[in-house]
Every structure is written in structure tokens, then in C-alpha cells.
């Protein structure tokens, strides 16, 4: 993780609060995370863990009244300090977002063609003809066959899967260097999910795009990303290479997520739900936010918040990380011992 060159995207101690009835409440506690150029990072967590706001902070798309601490750097430049023109440039051609629900996120009254070409024509000054040609090519690339007809249609005339492909084409049309994919398949049928994921993967590969992939599906993230970051109650609790997820995860929450998911490969392992309910960031006390649900929690966990530290292949924010390969339920040895 200690790359010498500047990463394409870096969250440095990101902290976000939102006003709720007059007082500010933390929705993101602490996110330290980097996405290298061309790399894909999966940000995994339950709903309310703050993963979506983390992604939106890259484009400064936060709800009104949100306060941001720490920093988000895109290609070295601080997003929080950008002026309006640089921000527009970042949004137009630096990073592009693929939203979860294309039906809500595409203007229902305008044609698909208008939607795709609007950015090119209004912010880059391209001619409508050239922009339309580009849009047609991109629609074909994302697997929409009768592109010219689709360009004249409105969102209501397209299926959810087709609309999400349109959304992907719209993200690609500005030739960004980073894709922010916010649960791009959650709103789709299971069968179209795989197709849409394949379209994203292929487009990334061809262009060498970096991606921050937001999802609650740990296995899906592991399948399409190089590296996985697990978020819980507003903080990244563990980050590790995707390939090492099953063998090297040390955080009890990551382990619990893995155990809560049916895995056809491992046979008759019983499924285990995580007990208790997920906490929101603002409810977290002074200790580890996962402590109330953690089978391995001790006194220290309720009083001191653990900071992310190196654990083998990744980084884990846990006082008592579980040893690689050890049984989930057994508490790991203390950090000091393991380091010794």
C-alpha cells in the first residue's frame, strides 16, 4: 500500500457530519483509503454504514449542510478546496458516478440522446452531431443493439437493465479516469446484474479505468475488485487484497459477513446471521462501533476506538484481530503479542 507515486484517489481521515434537527451528527467517522490509477477498490458495508456518502464526497455531492473533515484528493488535488470551475472539470471528465437506481437518476422527460450528450455539448462545447455519434458508439459498446432508436426514446420506454447500461455509457462518455459505482446492480434483476457487471468490467479493462465500487455484496466486490475495504458504522474496519479475503481477513465483522453469506463451494457450512442490529455512525460510542455485536469483544473494545494497523496482507482496525485461519468464534491473541 505504500506506493511512492500519488494515488488517483485518496481519502485522508475523511469525516462527514450531517445536520439532524439542528445538531450535527457524524455519518462517516474515519475513512483512510486509496485507489491507485487503474485499480479497483470495493467498499463494502451494510446500508447506513456511510459507504455511499464516502463515494459522493469525491464529487462533493453531499446533502446540504454536510460538513467534511479530513480531505479527499483526486490526482493530488484537494476536492474539498476546489473552486467551482475545477469542480466542474472534475465532475465532467475526472470522475463519473454510476448511480444505483437509473430510473430515478435519469431525467424522465428528456430523451436518452439528450441525457448522454448533454455534458459533451454544454461543458465541452462539442457539436451535437459529433456528440450523438459518440453516444451511438458507446451505446453499442455497452451492449445496446438498436442505438439510434434508443437515443430518441425516453427512460420510461427502456427496461431497468437497459437504463443502467445507458447510465454506464453516460459515465464513460466524459472519458473519466475514475468510475464511482454506487451499488450499480442492486436495483436490477438477478439475471441482468451479471450482464451489467460484465459491461462495467469490460469497459474498465479496455480503458484502464480506476473504480471505487460501492456494494453490500462482499463476494461480488471480491470478484471484480483488486482490493476490498469493509466499512462499519462510518469507519473502514478492514482493508485487504480481494484474493486474500477468505484467508487473511482478521476483523470479526469481516469474518461475520463472510459467514453470513451462503457459499455453494464450501458445502454444508451453517449460515450465521450477525446478532444485534447494525449501528449508524452517530450511535457509535467511544469504543469500537462493532463491540456490541462482536463475539470477541473485551473491556478495552468498549472504551477505546481501535485505529487501522497492518495485519499481514491488509490493515485492520481491531484491538484483538482474529488470527488468519483461526476459528471465527475464538478471540485472537492480543496485538502486542502478535507483533512481538
Amino acid at each position, binding site marked *: 500500500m505504500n506506493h511512492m507515486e500519488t494515488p488517483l484517489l485518496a481519502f485522508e481521515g475523511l469525516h462527514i457530519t450531517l445536520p439532524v434537527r439542528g445538531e450535527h451528527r457524524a455519518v462517516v467517522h474515519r475513512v483512510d483509503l486509496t485507489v491507485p490509477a487503474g485499480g479497483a477498490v470495493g467498499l463494502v458495508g451494510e446500508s447506513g454504514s456511510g459507504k455511499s456518502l464516502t463515494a459522493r464526497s469525491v464529487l462533493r455531492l453531499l446533502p446540504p449542510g454536510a460538513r467534511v473533515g479530513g480531505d479527499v484528493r483526486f490526482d493530488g488535488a484537494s476536492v474539498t478546496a476546489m473552486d467551482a470551475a475545477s469542480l466542474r472539470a472534475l465532475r465532467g471528465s475526472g470522475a463519473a458516478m454510476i*448511480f444505483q437506481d437509473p430510473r430515478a437518476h435519469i431525467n424522465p422527460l428528456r430523451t436518452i440522446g439528450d441525457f448522454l450528450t448533454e455534458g459533451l455539448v454544454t461543458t465541452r462545447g462539442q457539436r451535437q452531431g459529433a456528440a450523438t455519434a459518440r453516444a451511438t458508439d458507446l451505446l453499442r459498446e455497452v451492449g445496446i443493439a438498436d442505438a439510434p432508436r434508443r437515443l430518441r426514446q425516453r427512460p420510461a420506454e427502456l427496461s431497468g437493465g437497459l437504463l443502467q447500461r445507458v447510465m454506464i455509457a453516460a459515465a464513460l462518455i466524459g472519458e473519466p479516469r475514475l468510475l464511482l459505482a454506487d451499488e450499480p446492480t442492486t436495483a436490477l434483476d438477478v439475471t441482468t446484474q451479471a450482464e451489467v457487471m460484465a459491461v462495467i468490467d469490460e469497459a474498465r479493462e479496455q480503458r484502464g479505468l480506476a473504480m471505487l465500487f460501492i456494494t453490500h455484496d462482499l463476494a461480488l466486490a471480491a470478484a471484480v475488485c483488486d482490493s476490498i475495504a469493509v466499512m462499519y458504522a462510518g469507519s473502514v474496519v478492514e482493508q485487504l487484497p480481494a484474493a486474500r479475503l477468505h484467508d487473511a481477513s482478521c476483523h470479526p465483522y469481516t469474518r461475520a459477513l463472510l459467514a453470513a453469506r451462503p457459499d455453494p463451494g464450501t458445502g454444508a457450512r451453517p449460515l450465521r446471521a450477525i446478532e444485534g442490529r447494525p449501528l449508524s455512525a452517530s450511535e457509535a460510542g467511544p469504543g469500537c462501533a462493532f463491540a456490541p455485536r462482536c463475539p470477541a469483544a473485551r473491556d478495552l473494545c468498549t472504551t477505546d476506538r481501535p485505529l487501522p494497523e497492518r495485519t499481514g496482507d491488509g490493515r485492520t482496525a481491531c484491538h484483538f484481530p482474529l488470527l488468519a485461519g483461526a476459528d471465527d468464534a475464538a478471540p485472537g491473541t492480543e496485538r502486542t503479542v502478535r507483533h512481538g
Partner: protein
Amino acid sequence: MIARFVVRRAAALAVTLLIASVAIYGALFLSPGDPATLLVGGGKEPSPRLLAEIHRQYHLDEPFPASYWRWLTGMLRGDAGQSLSYQDSVTHLLGARIGNTLLLIAYAALLIVTFGVALGALAALRGEWADTVVTVLSTTFMAVPVFVMAVLLTWGFAVRLGWFPAYGSGTGFTDRLEHLTLPALALAASWLAYVAQVSRAAIRAELVSEHVQTARSRGIKESRIVRKHILRNAAAPIVSVSGVAVAGLIAGSSIVEQAFGLNGVGALLIQSAAKQDLAVVQALALLTVVAFALINTAVDVLSAALDHRLPPGGSR
């Protein structure tokens, strides 16, 4: 798709108007006494000779469908019969007054659409104090009836400040406009407030919508987002309530004309109702219902054209 919608709405309009015309003509026969007394006006018993004359003139002794048909075709030909209390043809009475009424309604409609939408947009887009001011003012003005507004405006702007005439219709275009300003304001006020509130709500809903967020995420300029995504998408509901408001002006115009002593068809409707001169009342009621229904239908078609998601549903 939109053509089918237009045809269906037009058919519904025709049926509505047909039934309404039967109801309006039938009202003549609802009264306990001889319907001919209602055509004389004045509500008092005229001489038997006059009554017999009216019976013959209006074919009151024919079966209802026949006399109704005679009345309806007469209306369609522009012959609305004679007003006995005004000693004039109804068509002539109407023709002399309709100009004032149309000018008044057009003036008020212009005020409603421009200022109502502008205030709604200001409240929604500026927020904070502008929002508070517009919300409080519109809530208040919506509760001020036309005739109280007429009284307030007359007192404030005609009597205290002396900026506008308090009474009468005026002659010549500018003089007429000057005479119509206070009536138009009185007529427009509560509808203007209503349009402002609905515009505000519609624009706010678009302002926080997901597709606007998408447009922002793509670096599109805020001014363009406001024009092409927010205002454009809020247009259908705004047009829809503006139409309801303009249709509402038709009913309100008679009160305003009465309050300001304007010589229009609305005041004629009220005065002939007071005289129980049913020939005039029937013609004006039919005219009002036709105008009301036409505007409502036109607005339905227009807002369906503005928002492709809405049309074929009948009940919105």
C-alpha cells in the same frame, strides 16, 4: 398516444357539455310555478295574456326534448332569446359586455401565471427568507376572498393613495386597463398565491430529485440544470394548476365585476339572477360552463404533452 388522449378528452368534454346544457335548460322547469314567470323576470306574476305569449314564443308547451332542442340549436346559432327585464336580445346584452370580462380575466390570468410562477420559483430556488416570506404571504392570501380583496384594494389604492379609480369600466384601452387594474388584482390574488405555492412545491420536488443530482455529478452548469432539468420538469404540474386557476377566475369574475361596478357578463349574470330573468341566466351559465370545461380540457392536454409519463390515465 397523445392523439388518442386528445380524442378521448374531447369526447368526454362533449358529453359533459351536453348533460350540463340539459341541466341548465331543465332548471327552468324545476321551479314550483309556471316556468314562463321566470322568463318574464322580476319574480312576480304577470298578466295571463303575457304568459300565454311567452308560452308560445318559447314553445313551453311542447315536450321537453323538443323545446330543449330548439333552445340548444338557438344557442349554437347565437340566438339566445329575449330578455324581458332588459327589453333586449340576450346576444346583444352579452356582446356589449363580454369584452370587459375577457380583458379582466386575461389581465388576471397574466398576473397569476407570471407572478405566481415567479414567486414560487423564487421561494423554491432561493430558499431561506424568500421561502418564508412567500409561504406566509401565500397562505394568508389564499384565505382572502375576492370580495374582501376588492374592499381592501379599493380602500388602500383608490381611497387612501388615489392611484387607481375605484369604480367603473373606463373608456379607451389605457383608461380601461387602469380601471381594470384593481379588479384584476383582487381577482388574481388568492389564485396567484395558490399557483405560487404549487409552483414552489413542484420546483422543490425537482430540486432534490435524483436526476438533478446526476446532472450535478456530471459537471453541468447550475443555471442550465435549473432551466433544463428543474423548471422544465416542474412545468407540467405548474401548467396544470395555472389552468385550474384561470378556470377559477371565470367564477370569480362575476363577484369582482359586481364589487367594482364593472359592466361585464359576470355582473350581468348576478343582476339577472336577482331579477330572476332566466333567459339571460341560462345563456350565461352555459357560456361559463363551456369556457370552464374548455380551459380544463385544454390544460389537461397541454400538461399531458409536457409530461410524457402522464397521459393515458383518465383520473389525475
